[in-house]
C-alpha cells in the first residue's frame, strides 16, 4: 500500500466519523412508559409463571380442544387407510391348518342301523351309553369352502325293553369343529 492509498483511507475514515457524529445528533425515540411497566411485571413474576404481556392486539386463543379434534381426525383417517387394504385382500389358505375353536359343534349324523330299531313300546331314552371308539378324520372342507375338523364317536346305547331284557343300539356322533386357517 503506497502513501497515496494511506492518505485516501484516512480521509475516508475521517469523513465517516464526521458523518457518524452528524447522524448521532438524531436521538432515538424513547419507548412508551408502558414498556417499563410490562418489564417490571415480567421480572417480578416467577420464571415458571411468566406470561409476557404484549402491546400488540391479542390474537384469539385457539380453542382448547381444537388441537385434539384435529389429531383425532388424522388418527381416524390413518386407521381407515390402513384397514382398507386388509379388508380388500383375499384370505390365503395355508397348508397347515390350526384349530381355533375349542368348543365342538356336534352334528348328529344319521346313525347307521346295525341293530334292530327299538320297538314302539321301548322307552325312547337310553338308560346307559357305552363309548366304543373315537375317530379323527382330520380337516375337511365342508361344501368345498368351510374348513372344519371332523371327529367321530361311536356309542352303544342301551334301552330298557318291554320284556325286561333290554335292547342295544349303536350311535355315531359326528363333531364338526370349525377351524381357522392361517
Amino acid at each position, binding site marked *: 500500500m503506497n502513501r497515496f492509498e494511506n492518505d485516501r483511507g484516512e480521509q*475516508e475514515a475521517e469523513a*465517516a466519523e464526521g*458523518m*457518524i457524529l*452528524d*447522524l*448521532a*445528533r*438524531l*436521538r*432515538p*425515540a*424513547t*419507548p*412508551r412508559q*408502558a*414498556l*417499563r411497566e*410490562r*418489564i417490571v411485571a*415480567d*421480572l417480578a413474576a416467577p*420464571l415458571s409463571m*411468566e406470561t*409476557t*404481556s*404484549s*402491546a*400488540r392486539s391479542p390474537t384469539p386463543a385457539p380453542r382448547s380442544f381444537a388441537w385434539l379434534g384435529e389429531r383425532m381426525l388424522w388418527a381416524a383417517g390413518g386407521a381407515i387407510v390402513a384397514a382398507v387394504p386388509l379388508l380388500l385382500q383375499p384370505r390365503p389358505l395355508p397348508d397347515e391348518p390350526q384349530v381355533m375353536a375349542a368348543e365342538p359343534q356336534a352334528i348328529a349324523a344319521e346313525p347307521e342301523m346295525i341293530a334292530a330299531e327299538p320297538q314302539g313300546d321301548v322307552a325312547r331314552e337310553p338308560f346307559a351309553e357305552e363309548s366304543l371308539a373315537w375317530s379323527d378324520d382330520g380337516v375337511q372342507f365342508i361344501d368345498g369352502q368351510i374348513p372344519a375338523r371332523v371327529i367321530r364317536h361311536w356309542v352303544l346305547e342301551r334301552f330298557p325293553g318291554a320284556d325286561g331284557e333290554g335292547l342295544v343300539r349303536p350311535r355315531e356322533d359326528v363333531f364338526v369343529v370349525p377351524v381357522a386357517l392361517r
Partner: protein
Amino acid sequence: MENSDWHACFDCHAARLFLYARQWLPDRASAEDAVQGGFVKVWRGCRAGGSPDLPLLYAAVRSEALDLLKGHARRRARETKVALDGAGGDGWWEDDPLVSAERAAAVRTALEQLPIEQREAIVLRVWSGLSFPEIARTLGENENTVAARCRRGLAALEKLLPEGCRESL
C-alpha cells in the same frame, strides 16, 4: 442485583434498543415487544451479579425481533396497515428543536433503503454507540466484516440523503 439496577440500564439503553428493533419491525408495538422480550431474558440471566453484556442485550433483542418478524408474515395485511398509519409520526426519533422533522424523516427514509445488514451495522455504530468488536459479537460476524458493512452503508446513506441534509443534520 437490585431492582434499581435494571431501571438504570433501561433508562440508558431502552431508546437505542427500541430503534434497533425497529429496523426489522414496522410498528412501535412489535418493537416494544422485542425490547421487552430481549431485556427480560438477558436481565434474568445476569441476576447473579454484574450488568448485562451490551452485545448480548442487543443480540437478544435482535433474536426477539426476528422471531416476531416470522409471525409478522402471517399478519402482513394488518401490519402493513399499522406501518402505513405510523409512517407519519413515527417513533424513530425523539422530537428535537435543533433537528428539523424534515431532516429526521429524510434520514429514516434513506436508512430504510439500505440493505438490512448495512442498516443494522450503522444503527449499532451510530446510535447505540457500540464499537466494532461489540457489533461483531452482537451479530456473530467478523469484525472486519461489520466495519466494511458500516463503511459501505455510510457511503450509500450519504448518496441517498437529499442535498440539504448532507451538509448538516
